[in-house]
């Protein structure tokens, strides 16, 4: 019994760590999300420290990964030697995967929390030593690097020391990027050789018109900066900023598409569909076409709008899942809640008649039924749950049709993603790219597998994560 509870707790936490980013959602505010998430972290850390650390190996989101690392380092004294060794490796591996700005933010957070044990310093030192281009980091994340270096008692080599702590002293640098940075203070042409975020500040200082600036900085933009800036650059007539949509991650791309107006989407239908399909094919990899007959019930009700901070995120996940499932399935039928059948033109509007659409889906007799929804079934409330329960218990007890519910929204009040019914597994989802792995994890949520199986699964994931042989 205790085992089952433990397994439940861990799954609860994993769902939260995948979906919640502590930001405002459609139904709850940022504080509620933060408080609720903070409680879960605390609870798991105190009760199942090793499992808590092991979740770093799963596809949890960056916000939660940083929180876990922070919490582990803050409470380092509570761990024994063995645990510390395991945690240290997990943390180091996870930090390698996190985007550098997240890691620097985490280091600053540790500094604010006055965590400066030997282990923390060693982790910071190793991570900084492994950075491919310290000078580039020093320019791009200057304040953060300075804080990290200071906090970890490091002695940066070469010109980095003067650059960080006494930048007015040298008359010139020999490291090219540092020298460019120095020149950019007075030379307008120099700033175009700097990273975009740094150059932006210099452009403002030199009063360079935005359009001209975007036009010339275009080659220095990162992939996501390019995607983000594309529309505003186009409006200003800076045509050089053009993202290659086919190389974008699927969910980001879906978010971008949903950010366009309906007219624009209709006009660029071919291009956008092709980009989404290409991205989905790449994500599906060798699984493509191997899922048999798939029906998806996709939520485009008003609540899929998300919030002002996570704009259209739930809908973007649904749209990305749509294209991914299309690539995975041999025979695929999408059912949007609104009844629309043009996926490219979806927008969040209307109620959530999930029950009816699930019935429509089951009518088609698929091998798999995938439901992507925030779980706020309201027309009528709870019908989807009832339909699935009766279907599972009376009509399909043999599991001929696998049903899985993927939920992109963390429900702060319930400390979990909202479930439709206990008989159907529900998994949190952040990026559609994780869909395949999540459907595997979701089977634990059916409550039939206990802690030993879950532990074994986690051990496998941890081993794979750390790059060991199982």
């Amino acid at each position, binding site marked *: 019994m205790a085992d089952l509870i433990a397994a439940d707790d861990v799954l609860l936490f994993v769902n939260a760590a995948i979906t919640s980013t502590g930001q405002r959602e459609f139904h709850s505010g940022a504080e509620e999300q933060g408080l609720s998430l903070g409680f879960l972290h605390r609870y798991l850390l105190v009760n199942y420290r090793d499992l808590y650390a092991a979740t770093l190996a799963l596809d949890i989101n960056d916000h939660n990964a940083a929180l876990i690392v922070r919490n582990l380092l803050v409470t380092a004294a509570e761990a024994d030697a063995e645990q510390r060794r395991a945690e240290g490796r997990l943390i180091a591996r996870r930090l390698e995967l996190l985007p550098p700005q997240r890691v620097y933010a985490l280091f600053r957070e540790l500094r604010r929390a006055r965590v400066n044990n030997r282990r923390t310093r060693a982790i910071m030192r190793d991570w900084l030593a492994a950075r491919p281009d310290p000078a580039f980091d020093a320019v791009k994340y200057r304040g953060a690097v300075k804080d990290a270096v200071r906090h970890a008692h490091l002695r940066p080599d070469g010109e980095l020391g003067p650059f960080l702590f006494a930048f007015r002293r040298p008359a010139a640098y020999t490291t090219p990027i540092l020298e460019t940075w120095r020149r950019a203070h007075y030379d307008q042409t120099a700033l175009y050789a700097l990273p975009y975020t740094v150059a932006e500040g210099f452009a403002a200082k030199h009063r360079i018109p935005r359009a001209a600036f975007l036009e010339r900085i275009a080659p220095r933009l990162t992939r996501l900066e390019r995607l983000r800036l594309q529309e505003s650059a186009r409006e200003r007539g800076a045509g050089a900023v053009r993202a290659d949509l086919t190389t974008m991650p699927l969910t980001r791309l879906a978010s971008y598409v949903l950010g366009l107006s309906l007219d624009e989407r209709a006009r660029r239908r071919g291009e956008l569909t092709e980009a989404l399909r290409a991205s989905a094919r790449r994500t599906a990899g060798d699984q493509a076409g191997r899922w048999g007959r798939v029906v998806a019930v996709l939520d485009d009700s008003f*609540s899929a709008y998300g919030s002002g901070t996570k704009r259209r995120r739930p809908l973007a996940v649904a749209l990305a899942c749509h294209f991914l499932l299309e690539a995975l399935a041999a025979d695929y039928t999408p059912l949007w809640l609104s009844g629309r059948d043009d996926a490219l033109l979806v927008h969040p509007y209307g109620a959530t008649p999930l029950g009816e659409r699930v019935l429509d889906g089951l009518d088609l007799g698929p091998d798999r039924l995938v439901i992507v929804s925030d779980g706020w079934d309201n027309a009528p409330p709870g019908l989807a749950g009832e339909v699935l329960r*009766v279907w599972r218990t*009376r009509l399909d007890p043999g599991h001929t049709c696998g049903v899985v519910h993927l939920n992109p929204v963390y429900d702060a009040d319930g400390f979990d993603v909202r479930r439709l019914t206990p008989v159907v597994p529900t998994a949190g989802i952040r990026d559609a790219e994780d869909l395949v792995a999540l459907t595997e994890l979701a089977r634990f949520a059916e409550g039939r597998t206990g802690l030993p199986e879950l532990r074994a699964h986690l051990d496998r994931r941890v081993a794979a994560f750390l790059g060991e042989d199982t």
Partner: protein
Amino acid sequence: MIEPAGLTTRPAQVWGGVRLVPLVRETPIEDLRLDVRLHDADFGVVAVDARTDYWSYIPHGYVATWGDDAPAAAYGTQLLSPAERTRTPDRMALRFHRRMARRVAKNRLRFLPLHLALEGYLALHFGGPEIAWREWSHRAISHGLSPRVEEAYTGAVVRGLDDALRVFEIHAGQCGVLLYVADALASAFVVPRPADYRALHGTLLLDLYGELIYHYAMLSMPVPDFGARIADANVRSLADLRAEAARQREEWTAFHDEVMAGGLLGADYTYEHVYELGPYRLSRFLPPFERRRDNHIGELITDESGQVAYLKTFRLSENQVRRGHLLTVLAANDWSLPGTAAALGVTEPELGRRIENAGFGHLLRQDVRDHYRARRSHAG
């Protein structure tokens, strides 16, 4: 009776203590629409073809800049024919403080601040004594019930209403909503077209709600959802399952219309026809002022067949019902005190006390009040 013909009840959406029941119209009424000036000014909706014939309406208390200078509030809901589409509606100029005026400049729609609208509602109904019985004070004869003050709360202070309206998912084709707080029907709101509803959904927060609703919202626990329940035993195939699901919806609709909205739909209203225009008729209605049940005042636009095109109601609190009851009985008996006392089955001094308790003491002459008081203490 209000006949909600053409409107279908859909499953309610619950948030905390607030339950919103959407009403969906199968066929929207296209030839009656929200005044186009409002649409243009506030919602940026593309104007309809000028040749299209339609009648327009302006809800009571709607604040906008009507062609002339300063922003003004529409006074009483109004119907405009196609020909007078440019006519400036009856209105009441508003004086804003400096800060308000700046917000007005943004051309945002807004309803009247608090009790002005409610006062309007009640003042429209009650004119004061028509026969100068000697008991009534000089002021009552010359000024009627004026000044007549009623208080209400704006939706913004009704706890949980803002969130409930924010997270509410508007149905396709939705033309109205019934708003329950702690399962007491607070307000009904129906418009002719889904586009109008979408435009006005947010204004429910600027509306007025009675004291009862305010307190219910403050004290109520979250109300339960009417979740679907399917009995396993009846289901042998997917078709059975579908039939059961459909039955769930029908049961809810029937239950809601009979039980939850019964107080609004079933009551005997007194209608006052204000205006007729084309096929449409604007009326205000008063409830029977029966105690211990819900009493709603409101305004209504119906077409020839009696179909509700526009409806807006306000739920009176218990005290307001008592006052309304007293005034209607007085009016029914031509404001004669002995007659009214007999109709109510009380003595004249008792009636005098009721009038005083209802806040209408100033309508009686001072010597009459003193006389009643002396007779009461003598009797007691």
